């Protein structure tokens, strides 16, 4: 009884990690860059939502519709960051690009702290749905919708990457940028599209995140970003199903560690699992067929 409850808690946390990890893994797959700013795009998405929701409310439109505005604006922001900060560094050492990503992340955090003050803001309820509890177990609606959305996005992205022309271009660029360019793939446009999709997904994650944890602040992105990145590595970075698996495994492991080992030492246990997985299988849980990355 208690165990199943804790499992459900872990599932909810994990589904959020998974959703954010998908954005990380996409960008990493194509440009081999830990996009530290990804977590902060989620934060920006949150502020866009809380500004849109009151406007929508005036017309009686439900709050979650704000996701569409957030997706568009975040996608634009993602592309903008890519063009301004990452593109000039494409042929530089990997570490310089990483530092730039950290710089962008710090910049967004501090800019929003200046604009909106460091105070946390309350996010209005996204979904007005109460779930019936079945036999004492209560799977909350945010959890359910997060898992459904994550699975749909995962399948959608797989199909997009396998079947569409742009998807094929993305795979080609991630395999070999120079050859792809010789074959007539517009590398810059492809990378920009990847950032647009990744950042758009971050906005989707924002809405689901805020429905579970209805509070945003300028610094929320950095921590959730690190955890989600770990989830991506755990599942096998570059693999979209890997992000899903990694996220769920991380969430459940965290929850069970808190419940049955020690809530004080939970973080150490989580990182310990990460280290063991990486040492035993450095390419992550699903990281076998390396050719499938994007």
């Amino acid at each position, binding site marked *: 009884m208690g165990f199943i409850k804790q499992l459900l*808690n*872990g599932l909810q946390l994990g589904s959020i990690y998974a959703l954010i990890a998908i954005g990380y893994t996409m960008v990493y797959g194509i440009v081999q860059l830990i996009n530290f700013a990804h977590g902060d795009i989620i934060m920006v998405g949150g502020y866009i939502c809380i500004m849109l929701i009151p406007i929508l409310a005036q017309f009686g439109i439900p709050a979650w519709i704000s996701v569409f505005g957030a997706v568009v604006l975040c996608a634009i922001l993602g592309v903008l960051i890519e063009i301004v900060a990452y593109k000039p560094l494409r042929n530089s050492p990997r570490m310089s690009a990483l530092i730039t990503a950290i710089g962008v992340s710090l910049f967004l955090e501090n800019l929003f702290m200046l604009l909106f003050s460091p105070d946390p803001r*309350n996010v209005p309820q996204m979904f007005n749905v109460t779930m019936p509890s079945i036999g004492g177990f209560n799977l909350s609606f945010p959890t359910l919708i997060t898992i459904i959305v994550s699975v749909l996005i995962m399948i959608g992205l797989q199909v997009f990457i396998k079947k569409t022309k742009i998807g094929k271009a993305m795979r080609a660029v991630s395999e070999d940028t120079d050859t792809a360019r010789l074959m007539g793939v517009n590398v810059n446009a492809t990378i920009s599209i990847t950032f647009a999709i990744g950042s758009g997904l971050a906005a989707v994650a924002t809405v689901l995140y805020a429905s579970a*944890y209805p*509070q945003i602040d300028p610094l929320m992105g950095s921590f959730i970003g690190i955890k989600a990145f770990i989830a991506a590595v755990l599942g096998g970075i570059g693999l979209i199903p890997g992000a899903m698996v990694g996220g769920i495994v991380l969430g459940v492991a965290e929850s069970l560690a*808190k419940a049955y080992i020690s809530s*004080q030492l*939970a973080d150490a246990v989580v990182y310990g699992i990460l280290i063991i997985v990486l040492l035993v299988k450095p390419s992550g849980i699903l990281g076998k067929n390396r050719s499938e990355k994007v």
Partner: protein
Amino acid sequence: MKKNLLVLTALVLALSLLAGCASGAASKGTDTNANNSANTSKAISQVMVGILAPLTGNVAIYGTAAKNGAVLAFDEINKNGGINGVQIKYDVLDEKGDATEAVNAYNKLVSEKMDVLLGDVTSKPTIAVADKAATDRMPMVTATATAPDVTTYGDNIFRACFIDPFQGKVMATFASDNLKAKKVAIVYNVSDDYSSGAAASFKSTAESKGMQVVAYEGYGNDDKDFKTQLTKVQQSGADALFVPDYYNRVALIGAQARSVGFDKPLLGTDGWDGVLKVLDKDGAKALDNCYFSNHYFSKDTDQKVVKFNEAYQAKYNEAANSFAALGYDAAYIIANAIKTAGTTDKEAVIKALKSTSYDGVTGTIKYGNNGDPIKNVTVIKILNDDYVLETKVSA
């Protein structure tokens, strides 16, 4: 390589010799300082107060409020003619909530000829600064640092707030006497000395009052999900849950506690002040019938409180909280002490601070054997998206 090592050893020896000479020179420097401070009993010609607070970084919310309160007070004093006609100058420095930056900023204020320090805000940087200030004999009043150690560094260090263990004690007594709780649970922030300090004292008081502590769970500083710990609390059958933390996390913990089916009251500390600001009407329901200890009651009909709230609202266009009130009181404590001393000489100001008797927004402040004030604790109840005065506990 061997030749290199030889050169290196020679260099180390040479430098350590020089280091010996230099320490002699340094001690000479302190002598002249002592001479300077001997020139006492000069009339006040100028007053310079250094304000140290985190204005950026993740504790900026508290720093900004405390600074705003202090600045409001100094501007008010200056408008009313300053101290014996002398306008108070103040310089606000940001320290990002970091101990190293705080010490740097403190040194900078000292080099700007600061007479009294108002700050710091959070406990760790405050202790680092207090250690420095004790050596310099710099009069120092912190508005909000509640860690017990702060005032133990020297008799020149004072604070406007009560201390963490005291709050834990008050709330445990409240749970036992007023709520008649038999079993209590605690959920606290492992990385935070404020939270873990209050949790520890709540635990020991609860045990000495004959209550059973059925859950003692921690969480990390950046956690947003507390359901696992709260599920354990819910299953332990606790009558009350003590959550000593700041309001942003309390808002999340409250909602998540209700979502895992825990419907007993939550108890908290002064960090809860402002929790309703980050909750909407639906969210606030989660905290109905919850209690927390605080420095003052913002809706108090006391004239001083009303006046302070109005002035704060007018100046900053937002409602004051207890951090702001403490900043305001700390500023008045300093101004009064300088006025009493009639000089900005450090020892005289310290002496005047010791004899402080100030009736402020957060209650009457008097100092006992050390720089910790003897003052009342206000217990506030949350009901229908509002704060209600529950009781005042005297120290």
